[in-house]
């Protein structure tokens, strides 16, 4: 589903922050992405959600070479990818409902379907009482859950999560991991960036380790 061959990434002609990374992610796979701060995790994730293009090498996502693909094709690829950002990136002027519904609205889904999907996910994730609230009135954990709901509401083919349980208590962290496992079982490939060794032990999956921009093991 995703193949990278000796990809490199540099910002504005600076040094390479990712160098010669090669990997293959199967459909329905689950990987952790670990590495120290500044090792290139975020840069690799940016390429995985087509927020950045590799400076060199070939990266294929859903069969398309993302460097050669048109902007329209890349937009279509991104629609199949769910992303949970470490800093949530909720839109402050929209309600929780509208934030979560955003990817469905971008896909021009009918409003009843959007309503049903948002209601289902927020009940499950425990945000049912906060649908009309603006993100600023939510706690860090609630914002993280809203960001998770937004990323998974389209049942993406590929989910990227950057420290998705970092601000959650243990019980909610386990629920979220259970949600990811369930999504994974239904065919969604997942790459989850984390420092949480306990979680890796509890939900064992292959680990992509990155250090100084190089992928050192899987």
């Amino acid at each position, binding site marked *: 589903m995703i193949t990278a061959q000796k990809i490199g990434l540099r910002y504005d002609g600076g040094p390479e922050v990712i160098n010669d990374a090669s990997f293959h992610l199967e459909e329905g796979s689950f990987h952790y992405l670990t590495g120290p701060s500044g090792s290139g995790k975020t840069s690799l994730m940016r390429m995985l959600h087509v927020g950045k293009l590799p400076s060199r090498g070939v990266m294929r996502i859903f069969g398309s070479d993302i460097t050669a693909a048109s902007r329209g094709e890349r937009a279509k690829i991104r629609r199949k990818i769910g992303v949970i950002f470490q800093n949530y990136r909720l*839109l402050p002027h929209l309600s929780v409902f509208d934030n979560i519904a955003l990817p469905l*609205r971008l896909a021009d889904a009918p409003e009843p379907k959007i309503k049903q999907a948002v209601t289902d996910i927020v009940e499950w994730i425990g945000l049912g009482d906060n649908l009309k609230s603006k993100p600023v009135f939510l706690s860090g954990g609630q914002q993280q859950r809203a960001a998770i709901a937004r990323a998974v509401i389209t049942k993406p083919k590929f989910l990227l999560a950057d420290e998705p349980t970092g601000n959650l208590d243990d019980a909610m962290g386990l629920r979220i991991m259970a949600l990811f496992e369930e999504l994974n079982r239904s065919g969604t490939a997942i790459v989850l960036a984390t420092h949480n060794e306990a979680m890796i032990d509890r939900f064992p999956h292959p680990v992509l380790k990155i250090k100084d921009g190089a992928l050192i093991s899987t």
Partner: protein
Amino acid sequence: MSLSSSTVIPSSTFRHISIMVFFMASLMGFCAFGLISVTSIISGWTNDITDTITIEIPAFDNTNKTILSDKDIQSQTQYVIDLIENDPAIINLKSYRPDASEMIDDRFNIPAPVFLTLYLHENRANNTEQRIAKSIKKSVPNAIIKTPTEWIKNIQSTATTLYFVFIGLMICVLIVTGVVVAGVVRTQLVASKETIQLIHLCGASASRITNLFQSVIIKTVIKGCIPSLIIIAFIITPLAAYLQFDGSLLLYWLSLPMIIILFIVLSAIVTLMTVTNALRDMP
């Protein structure tokens, strides 16, 4: 429901654009009225004099030294009339002689001149005026013959200058509008950078993001244009009645919707260029 513009752009953002468009559309409306007024007035003036020749039989001979008698003036006038009255290029001939009391030079006891106005066929040969003038001058050398060619040239040159002034003003209005729209859109792109990046990552294409901006801008432009054109209509209607405008007023009313369309197209293009340029860095 698809993604609405308010997701990206707060509704109040472009309110001041409406006010700017209101003034700019008003200026455009008045410029268009000016343009059509000049056309109408000039065509009225030229139509009145284009097909005429004026001949003056003065009270002096061709040396300007000898004062002619009233009888001489009458006989010269009759001679000219006899000479040209059967000319096929002439439709009508009118003569006019002011009363002696109307003449400035009455105190010197100079006879009043005679003025003949010749009305020519619209479809005449090109050199008709010159031919008639030449034949009159040959027989009555002191006759003063005036064709409207020079007048018309002067009027048309003034009209051309006025056209350029109005068209220049209209172009300036459009340029200013375009620059302001581009500036506001660029500012909003910076202010909404996080939002745009997010919806881009969620799968919105560049054209989708551009459309979101365009729809807000177009609504804003319409909101500014319509009241402005209503106010213009209220001002122009009595003004046109006072100026006794003819059919050209219809052309003016038809030009008003064109102003709205022009502003919409301009704003849409400027927005497209600005947003596309800003999204260049996003893959």
